[in-house]
């Protein structure tokens, strides 16, 4: 399997550095975006396998970004983990994120192995999404093909009828 790509969206310099080291160490390719706006752009162009995002960030926060990502055909099947330090109202924020379509969340103080475990669960989801998308594509192709065949049949039948008519009229 090719190297899996993870996009980290976080404004905190210390935070994103440690994410990068942990994830690179685990063999992932890591890209970094500094806020929601950059995150959107990066998600579209890089097509990561998983996104890890902070909640509050300048320019565009995590909730806003997740909402947009999950509405966009190009990015809606990328699993998202929301990560944050605990603060007041965190429960409400996390609920809002899950409602917006994020798949997973976790709080600080964070545990490296937990993070890696959650990432690999998300990658499984990504694989399932990918498989599903692929199957859908195949199904559609098949469908299109069978529809096409049916049309051809109808067309041929018409021709046969027409020929039969012609034959009948010659007699």
């Amino acid at each position, binding site marked *: 399997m090719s190297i899996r790509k993870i996009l980290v969206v976080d*404004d*905190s*310099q*210390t*935070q994103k*550095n*440690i994410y*990068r*080291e*942990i994830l*690179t*160490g*685990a*063999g992932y390719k890591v890209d970094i975006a*500094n*806020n929601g706006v950059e995150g959107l752009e990066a998600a579209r162009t890089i097509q990561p396998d998983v996104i890890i995002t902070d909640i*509050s*960030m*300048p320019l565009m926060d995590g909730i806003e970004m997740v909402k947009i990502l999950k509405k966009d055909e190009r990015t809606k099947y990328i699993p998202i983990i929301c990560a944050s*330090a605990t*603060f007041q109202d965190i429960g409400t924020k996390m609920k809002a994120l899950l409602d917006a379509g994020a798949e997973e969340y976790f709080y*600080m*103080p*964070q*545990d*490296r*192995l937990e993070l890696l475990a959650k990432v690999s669960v998300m990658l499984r989801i990504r694989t399932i999404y990918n498989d599903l998308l692929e199957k859908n594509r195949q199904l559609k192709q098949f469908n299109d093909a069978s529809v096409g065949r049916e049309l051809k049949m109808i067309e041929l039948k018409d021709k046969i009828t027409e020929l039969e008519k012609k034959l009948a009229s010659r007699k």
Partner: protein
Amino acid sequence: MPHANKAAAGKIAFPEELKTRLKSFITERCGLYFRDHDMRGLEDALVERIISLGMDSAVTYYSYITNPDHREDELRELLNKLTITHTYFFRNEPQFKALREKILPEIVERKTHSQTRCVNIPGLDQASEKPSIRIWSAGCSTGEEPYSIAMTVLDVISDIDNWDVQIIATDASTEAIDRARHGIYGKTSVKPVDRKHAERYFTVKDSGENGERYAINSEVKKMVTFGFHNLMADDFPGGFDIIFFRNVAIYFDLETTIKIMAKMYSGLKDSGYLLIGYSESLYFMQDKFKMIDWEEAIYYRKTATGEEKHFEIPISPSDKSRTVDEVLENISRAERAATLEAEASKTKPPQKNIEELLVRATKLYHMKDYTKAISVLKEAISANRDSVDPYYLEAQVYVNMSKFREARDSLAKALAKDRMFAPAYYLLGCISMEESLFDSAKESLKKAIYINKDFPLAHFYLAHTYRSEGKASDAIREYRNAIKLLSEAKSDDILAYGGGFDTAAFIGACRDNIERLKMEN
């Protein structure tokens, strides 16, 4: 390897298991890492050492090198064989520039001045009272460093005959000293020498199969006195104006290095200069030296005795019986006392105000209310212009806002208040990394380590920088350094500047990255 030994070399059995153990022993002790294709070189060096020691098996050698009685000496011998090619003339050019343009001119000026006064004393024998300069190249290896020093001295002092210049160069490897005395070098080590020096101080010898060889001229050679000296020995030369102690400490463990640094301090005259390499650190002695950060170079100057209040480090011969732990304990106790005293004298009423403001700003920072955090910090700065903390926090806020120029400004101000504020260099390094300026990132991170050797995150990000440049073995070394420092903390400690992860997370990340780098290379 000499031909005569080739037959003997074949007889040394080298079980794989032992090779692995020796490899990891060296890596653990010195952070030198061997990739598969380096193993051949390591093996050759090991065999060579085994033969020189008159041993007949690798097992005997393993128990010899791991024995604390000769561990350091032997490691050094071995590493000399392994690292000998890394030495070259004018290594760390910025430091030589500082020697040429700052250090030597200052010494010459000072000594000429005092000499004039001496001459005025009636009846003094002028001939025997030439002003003297004593320089020590400690751990001189094959002589490139002391000869570079000699050439620099000749650049600066035109009337060399009127001076008594002693350059003492020592090493614990007799083989290295023999080669240094010989003074004949290959193309690679002479390559950094500029044309002017090359033409003036070297003679080209053509020795056939080995390509061109360069012999150092007698004018330079006669200025340097080589000698055997083990830095761990109790007798230590003294009275130096300048000491070079560069890229030697990697061979020693922490305790030994601390002892050596304390002896270096004693061996320097008041206001003497100390030039150390990036692998060296001042260890607990920051207040005994003044750091001079000139252009690209960093060097240190001993603060004159009595000029500044500082704690005493026990290093006299009577302390010989002390264990390393006791010495360390003494040092840290003295250091703690000095810190407490300094803190007590600092506490003044306005300080309280700034502390409150800092707490508020920190909260806002964590809540990501950056604009408000900045305005509170501006208030803190105007409340107390001497504190570095608000500037540092301000820089952190700017970094998170991706406002790197502003962050650099804040850090410059913090450093103007305190040149020894290691976190500022650390953050500068992080900023440079964000901007993909790898060289300046490394420079800043190394400065942070220079000042505070106990800064695991600086090693951590230095490793990242090396990895970004594709320098796997350097990266691995720095990950190891980080692990070493991190292991000293409790594993569930939340690390300062660590972004909410505990030390175990950092250690795990380091280990993973080392494994990955090994796999990839």
